[in-house]
């Protein structure tokens, strides 16, 4: 199953000096791939390419994929579900879970801010005017609204990309321009319609995911923002 799940190019070599790898080289590779797939999917859900409404079918399929990964991670014990929604705050430096992202997105549609999410997440749940179409991956989006609603952690992700994408976060969503397409290129390995020599690079360009982790840990704690940043920034 692992052989067919991901492109061969994504299989990672064993990491040297990592005691968790020994004896089970396939397992960390699989969860890393799964993690990178999750991260890729989250970014796909959030990136809005143009002023046109995002494709609903594509968004639904990606969200379902995210849900499947989450479910499997939950079964594996690799996923720590956030505390059940309560008033008060959750850990802020945790990567915002998909559930929260999706909930945040859906609840954007002109409703009251969700009381169960940390109030310090700016923008995402700032009270939108009732009836106004705020960013929601299902409902019609305006790119402006989308920008304003980004959960803090994703904003942090994009800010750290500034060395690679010098424009501010908003620049990433400009409809034309280097930084945005750089991000796209990084993630997809393809720039515009044509990839490099031969047109075959699309397949050969690897996802930036799967960089060897910091030597300390092979465990993928979903709360580690650094890890996500690393994945997105890998050259």
């Amino acid at each position, binding site marked *: 199953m692992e052989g067919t*799940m991901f492109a061969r190019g994504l299989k990672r070599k064993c990491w040297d000096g990592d005691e968790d790898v020994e004896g089970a080289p396939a397992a960390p590779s699989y969860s890393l791939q799964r993690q990178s797939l999750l991260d890729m999917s989250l970014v796909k859900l959030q990136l809005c390419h143009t002023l046109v409404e995002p494709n609903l079918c594509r968004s639904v399929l990606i969200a379902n994929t995210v849900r499947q990964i989450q479910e499997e991670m939950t079964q594996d014990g690799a996923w720590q579900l956030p505390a059940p929604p309560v008033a008060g705050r959750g850990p802020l430096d945790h990567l915002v879970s998909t559930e929260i992202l999706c909930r945040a997105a859906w609840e954007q549609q002109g409703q009251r801010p969700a009381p169960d999410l940390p109030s310090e997440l700016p923008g995402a749940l700032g009270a939108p005017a009732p009836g106004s179409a705020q960013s929601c991956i299902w409902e019609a989006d305006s790119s402006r609204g989308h920008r304003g609603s980004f959960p803090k952690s994703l904003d942090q992700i994009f800010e750290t990309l500034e060395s690679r994408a010098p424009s501010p976060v908003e620049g990433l969503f400009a409809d034309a321009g280097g930084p945005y397409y750089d991000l796209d290129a990084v993630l*997809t*390995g393809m720039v515009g319609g044509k990839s490099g020599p031969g047109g075959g690079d699309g397949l050969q360009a690897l*996802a930036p995911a799967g960089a060897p982790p910091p030597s300390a840990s092979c465990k993928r704690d979903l709360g580690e923002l650094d890890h996500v940043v690393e994945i997105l920034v890998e050259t």
Partner: protein
Amino acid sequence: MGEDTDTRKINHSFLRDHSYVTEADIISTVEFNHTGELLATGDKGGRVVIFQREPESKSAPRSQGEYDVYSTFQSHEPEFDYLKSLEIEEKINKIKWLPQQNAAHSLLSTNDKTIKLWKITERDKRPEGYNLKDEEGKLKDLSTVTSLQVPVLKPMDLMVEVSPRRVFANGHTYHINSISVNSDCETYMSADDLRINLWHLAITDRSFNIVDIKPANMEDLTEVITASEFHPHHCNLFVYSSSKGSLRLCDMRAAALCDKHSKLFEEPEDPSNRSFFSEIISSVSDVKFSHSGRYMLTRDYLTVKVWDLNMEARPIETYQVHEYLRSKLCSLYENDCIFDKFECAWNGSDSVIMTGAYNNFFRMFDRNTKRDVTLEASRESSKPRAVLKPRRVCVGGKRRRDDISVDSLDFTKKILHTAWHPAENIIAIAATNNLYIFQDKVNSEMH
């Protein structure tokens, strides 16, 4: 299917001098009319181009039956939805011809939100010899009129006039993916991601909602409508496909709102092939009834399947379009190619099915002989009247000389839209901004 083919690449005239692809010229739909005499294409810039088949003449046997441009018009313009701050693309998603009922031709064209009915008429005569007006239409000096004449109709150069007769607007919140004309020739349906509406061709200010799968809570949304079509003979039956790979056959006589299907066609998942991408690749991108009305053809990411309306449990035939992509699904997910929506088509006798693939390849499967062929639509490999050479994608192992390896495939060259002449072996292939029309001269009879 060795054939002597006559290939004709038809370029929009304004592209002739350019080697780059203007995005507006990307063809987004292709459709023959019911006789095959006319072929309509829609593009991303909202234009419709209609081609007409030249009548075969003995004097020029080599040019018989080729398609020339008949009419070009702007069907849809870009719009801006001020409430949502969103652009509405002018791209033509689908064109469907109405059955011809008089001298005029009619077609429906749609973008994401609005369907339009266009009437195409020919004018090849004009009245001459008015008493009160002169040739340019200016009033004559009455003192110069000495006798009365009866105006007569004189032939003139053919003029094709296109006019919008109906605009069916504001029926859809989500993006329209299909339209289908009913066999009753009075109604048609339009489907978006979550709803299907039934319209009367003469009434534009209201439509009936016949399918609604929008959940009460959008957070619960996990499935969308991807395509739909009316049955070719039974005006009460239609089918719609979903992003989870299921088909639902609905009977409009059963209830006003056809949320409950009459039949559900679904193939159980193959556990040995299960991956995180299983659902995505099972999403049906196109569904077409056979001409006989007995079968349905569906296209998902890797296969085309033939379903018997009498058997809901599984398709009766499955054909692999590009199984070699199965191990590349993660990359294809990364670059979004996995979401490409390929169409499929039957030939007139329902014996051969066709669909597009990458690298400007398209595939044909003969249901009787079980043979299949891969052909390429490209300027380099086809000259007029050349025989198309079968192509092969090699996946490792023994490689023949002209084989293409999987890693060399160009995923930006995708053939999403194809059409088959209703009666003859003529196919229309849209390759980005180019239209290819291939004819099978040797085997012109269907078998």
